[in-house]
């Protein structure tokens, strides 16, 4: 029987990145994906004939440029199209659009607050400095504060210097980012609710917190680290949907020699003498490898595929405590024509970016209130995109796909998560009702509706509790604490088992960094164990 150098469990984008790097280094690699299609949550599927949905994740920003270059992803089919604008329709028929052109944005914002319009540039400069500070953090493995290994101590000191070698005002800004709520942080800069509301939501995406919850300011920064072609704060669509990213990575991996199988669900990871030695497929087949890499989240990996009995108690307890608390769902619509917003009728560049239903901070906080007590928001925050306006491959001519990210949709509803299937359509209705307040004709142009609750994200895509980031991106679950103290550098307590998914540093989003950094660490270890 063939023994692979590495078997990667899960063909999500991180698993594929890891496989591609290992294969490029000459290792024999097998990727096993449970579903019929690659990509995990970065997946495109033709859900309705002629309409291709980015079923889960829907925009790309953090995909590391060095990964694109290392794996030659453009050559293997990756094509990105930038989002042009951030559009905020308001219930009173007014609206705000923020554009790539700062002058145009300034004009729009000054209708609500001339002062804020002036401050915008200053804020963007400060945040991009913060983003540049954070960049080396997401481009290298997490520091190891407990280590006495001289190389790691030097690394830690360097990071410490990097952190403190900044003017006082920047240090102050960093500390505020680490401790404040999104809203409090933005209050220090801006006065207009209309501007602050859509900005503050960057702090809550994928977490079960509200825009007024402390600690959410940091996640704002995550959204300022995104870059395309060296330009910070830019987001893009992937041609053909976000699955296009995964397929390009898979093409690269195959080119470098990796073997990829779909519809090959892994039942469990084989453990012998305290080490991972392969996997057992659902059909009973056993496959052997010197190393097993999991692209799945920590709970699924350790408590599911490995089993508590093979793990140190303390580690297993940490993994069990690690927070998921999925808070979002997804509604994908196939549309007969472009939606018509009351506030800006007709076609236009405002439809070529992201559209936020976040009319005020109170609206967002109310949405969170309902979720706290176990129901989905009757008027949720929506982040809407219509990628077919710039990518004609995803819908027939003249037709469109509309993707709605919906928060809050708590995994833990009062009735219990297993009752989500009974509530799914009501949840979908709440989303369409919300949209209809801004697009009165929306119901007449919907050709097909796909509703995904956090329960569905868990059942179909293997995301524990429906968390889109493999665990919340809150400070206590980041860097050297992700997924557990002492085990943040892709290694696990089980020799030969590695974690390469978003549950590892630096976290979620279509970033590829966990997969790439895991592969680098494995290769540096020599024998992959």
């Amino acid at each position, binding site marked *: 029987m063939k023994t692979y150098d590495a078997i990667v469990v899960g063909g999500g984008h991180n698993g594929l990145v890891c496989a591609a790097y290992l294969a490029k280094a000459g290792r024999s690699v097998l990727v096993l994906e449970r579903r019929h299609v690659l990509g995990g949550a970065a997946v495109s599927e033709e859900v309705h004939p002629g309409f291709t949905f980015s079923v889960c994740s829907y925009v790309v920003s953090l995909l590391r*440029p060095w990964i*694109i*270059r290392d794996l030659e*992803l*453009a*050559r293997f089919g*990756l*094509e*990105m*199209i*930038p989002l*042009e604008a951030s559009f905020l329709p308001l219930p009173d028929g007014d609206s705000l659009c923020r*554009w*790539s*052109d700062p*002058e*145009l944005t300034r004009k729009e914002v000054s209708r609500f607050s001339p002062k804020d319009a002036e401050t915008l540039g200053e804020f963007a400069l400060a945040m*991009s400095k913060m983003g*540049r500070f954070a960049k080396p953090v997401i481009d290298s493995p997490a520091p190891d504060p407990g280590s006495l290994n001289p190389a790691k101590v030097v690394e830690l000191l360097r990071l410490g210097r990097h952190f403190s070698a900044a003017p006082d005002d920047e240090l102050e800004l960093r500390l505020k980012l680490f401790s404040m709520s999104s809203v409090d942080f933005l209050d220090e800069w801006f006065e207009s609710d209309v501007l602050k509301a859509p900005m503050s939501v960057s702090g809550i995406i994928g977490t079960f917190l509200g825009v007024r919850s402390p600690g959410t300011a940091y996640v704002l920064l995550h959204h300022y680290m995104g*870059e*395309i*072609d*060296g*330009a*910070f704060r830019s987001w893009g669509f992937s*041609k053909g949907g976000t699955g296009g990213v995964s397929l390009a990575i898979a093409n690269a991996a195959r080119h470098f020699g990796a073997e990829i199988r779909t519809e090959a669900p892994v039942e469990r990871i084989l453990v012998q003498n305290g080490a991972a030695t392969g996997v057992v497929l659902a059909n009973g087949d056993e496959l052997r490898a010197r190393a097993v890499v999991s692209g799945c989240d920590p709970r699924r990996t350790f408590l599911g595929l490995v089993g508590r009995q093979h793990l140190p108690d303390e580690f297993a307890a940490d993994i069990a405590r690690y927070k998921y608390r999925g808070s979002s769902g997804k509604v994908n619509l196939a549309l007969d024509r472009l939606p018509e917003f009351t506030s800006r009728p007709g076609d236009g*560049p405002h439809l*070529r970016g992201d559209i936020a239903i976040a009319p005020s901070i109170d609206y967002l906080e109310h949405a969170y209130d309902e979720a706290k007590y176990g129901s989905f928001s009757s008027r949720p925050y929506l982040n809407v995109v219509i990628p077919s*306006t*710039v*990518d*004609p*491959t995803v819908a027939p*001519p*003249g037709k469109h796909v509309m993707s709605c990210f919906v928060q809050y949709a708590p995994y833990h509803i009062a009735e219990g998560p297993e009752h989500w299937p009974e509530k799914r359509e009501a949840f979908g209705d709440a989303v369409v009702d919300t949209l209809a307040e801004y697009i009165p004709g929306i119901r007449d142009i919907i050709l097909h509706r796909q509703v995904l609750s956090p329960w569905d994200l868990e059942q179909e895509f293997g995301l524990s509790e429906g968390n889109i980031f493999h665990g919340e991106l809150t400070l206590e679950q980041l860097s050297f604490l992700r997924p557990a103290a002492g085990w943040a550098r892709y290694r696990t307590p089980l020799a030969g088992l590695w974690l390469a998914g978003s549950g590892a540093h630096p976290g979620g989003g279509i970033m590829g960094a966990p997969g790439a950094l895991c592969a680098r660490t494995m290769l540096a270890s020599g024998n992959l164990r």
Partner: protein
Amino acid sequence: MPAPTPFHPRTFALNSSLLYKEWAGCYAPKRYDVYLDREYYAVRHQATVMDATPLYKYEVRGKDASALLSRIMVKGFAKFAVGRVSYVCWCDEHGKVLDDGTVTRLASEHFRVTSADPALGWFSRHARGLDVALDDSSRTIAALALQGPRSRDVLRGLVGNEIDGLKFFRALSTRLPGRGGIDLTITRTGYTGDLGYELWVANEHALALWDAVLEAGRTHGLLPMGLDALDVVRVEAGFLLGGVDYTSARRAPIERQKSSPYELGFDWMVDLEREPFVGRDSLRRDRRAGPRRRFVGLEIAWDDFERIYERYELPPHLETGTSRDGVPLYRSGRQVGYATSRTWSPLLKRYLGLATIESDLAADGTELEIEVTCEYERHRARAHVRPLPFFDPERKKA
């Protein structure tokens, strides 16, 4: 002062940036919006329409039309079939390139030539003794470049399935339905390196054509495109531009500024084994001797570029669009050439250049150094010679 083209009433209404450039005496939009990306991505993913009217155009008619072109151009046109289009250059008596353009055979005794510079005088000078009539149609025929992966779908909506039979570098004479029909010539040509067409009509039908194209393009994401986006995609396609990547022999005050077709990579166009033509004897000598310089593709090492900026704690920064500032290239400390066009390709995720370098360094993969200026200080980054074109999708010829 530049003059408006026949499309001006429509393009002016759409040009929200008010950024224009003078092109052959005409107003030409640089970009329709201050944000360049929209047009760039539209031409690579959807379709764009660009006013190409400023191009110089000449109608060559008569029994000896092909003989005249064979005499001027570096290739012969005697056996060139009706309905074909050719990209070609022409030289002075010393075999130095004057201009490059397309030649279309519209009928057995009718050719249309396009050029970047006026050429009527040059063509007439060589027409002596031939039965040929030369007409300058530069300002009587309007041209639209309809380019991008969806351009064929747009045209199908305009002229029907007839368009599906039109092959790469072929011409089709047809009629645009409505208003009693408009004579329209469609060539499957362009300057984007993508699937694309150029549409040619008499000036008086220009607006009707524009309206019909925009209407047909409505469901295909068609956008108007200006020269700035074109300048990026033409570098991806590896197309050199007269006046930027080489100097016309007619404009060059000194010898070293002139180029032979071999230096520009036009070897494939030149047919020396035929009747005499302008510059033939010099070109024969040039071919024997081999060119001193070569026109090549260049890829600038992004890691080096980024590292230079990191020294100043700056993110790497490139102006959007193509830079046409010439920059020196070095090898082992010695200057060996210059890059004439540089652009970041958002599609290929590579920093590309077009360059002229000493011939013995023109092999694919040769490592050079390019000058990079950051904070007014000079640095060098590695750059590698790469084959052209950088971007060559199957759909271009399919």
